[in-house]
């Protein structure tokens, strides 16, 4: 009974982190392409395996506060770019794809940041998401298992979360691809900014009221602010000038 409880506890704790990992990887893959994203995710998992294998239980002593502060700030800065561009674009052209449009124009901001060839932005985003979330999973496994001296059981629980939640994320991919890119960027932007705020502040020493539940509060607050900004921008949107009115 105790063994089952340990596996279940680690599974649920790891599942929360894996959901975040899959959200980031699927979001980046849909908006920027899968090749570099999967390469980043694969590299992240490899780095993670090396880190876990090399450090083992010593992972508990990695200063996760510094890691959270740095990665949180980076996610926050990048997430804000996505969010502000998505909010502004939706305020100008609405939520749906333009009629007859391929949707490629929706990605112009991201296209602008792309280098020719391999998409290092997608690689870096996916890599960071997997490594950070994976470290959290490793941390959960080690923390839970260290107390009970049953590391193998903790690994089984976390591996089950990886396989089950990861597979669900892959199957949901086709549905996610049908969503307009700007709407997806809006959602992923909210998530990145929320997690960035949470980890960044926590890494700097902030103690969030409500603990991890604060992430949900942050998502709600940013969602409300973005909706309000969207409504305000749409209400004050300048009317498009007709060809006769346009200055020559």
């Amino acid at each position, binding site marked *: 009974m105790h063994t089952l409880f340990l596996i279940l506890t680690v599974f649920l704790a790891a599942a929360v982190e894996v959901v975040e990992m899959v959200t980031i990887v699927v979001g980046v893959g849909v908006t920027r392409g899968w090749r570099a994203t999967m390469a980043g995710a694969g590299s992240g998992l490899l780095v993670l395996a090396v880190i876990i294998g090399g450090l083992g239980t010593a992972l508990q002593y990695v200063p996760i506060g510094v890691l959270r502060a740095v990665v949180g700030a980076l996610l926050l*800065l990048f997430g804000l*770019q996505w969010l*502000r561009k998505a909010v502004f674009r939706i305020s100008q052209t609405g939520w749906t794809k333009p009629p007859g449009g391929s949707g490629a124009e929706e990605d112009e*901001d991201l296209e602008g940041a792309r*280098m020719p060839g391999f998409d290092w*932005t997608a690689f870096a985003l996916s890599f960071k998401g997997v490594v950070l979330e994976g470290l959290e999973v490793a941390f959960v496994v080690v923390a839970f298992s260290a107390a009970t001296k049953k590391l193998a059981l903790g690994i089984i629980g976390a591996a089950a979360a990886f396989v089950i939640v990861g597979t669900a994320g892959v199957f949901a991919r086709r549905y996610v691809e049908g969503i307009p890119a700007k709407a997806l960027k809006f959602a992923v932007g909210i998530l990145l900014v929320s997690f960035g705020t949470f980890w960044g*502040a926590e890494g700097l*020493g*902030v*103690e969030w009221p409500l603990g991890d539940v604060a992430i949900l509060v942050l998502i709600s607050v940013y969602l409300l602010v973005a909706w309000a900004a969207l409504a305000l921008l749409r209400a004050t949107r300048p009317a498009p000038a007709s060809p006769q009115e346009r200055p020559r």
Partner: protein
Amino acid sequence: MMFLALSYRYLKRFVVFWKEFLIGDDWWGAGIVLVGLGLTYLAVHENVAAWWVPIVFVIASLAQNLVRAHRRVARTGSEAQPAAPPKPSGDADPGRRR
């Protein structure tokens, strides 16, 4: 010498990549967020409950960017920032082109 030139080129591309990745065209927005995180750090070390500080600065960063973009569209009809005038390239030798 060639190794140094190559290293410089890769270093420059690396810096440009991270600048585009993190800041894009909004230096003000990034600055506001970083100031917010700095103030959060200071407040925490003065034992002040500072969980709300980064949220306020993130919202301020988003608001200033959207207001500026809105004004830009009203003024020019385009969301994009006006392109900067081309800089003279340091490594080009005009005399060699002739």
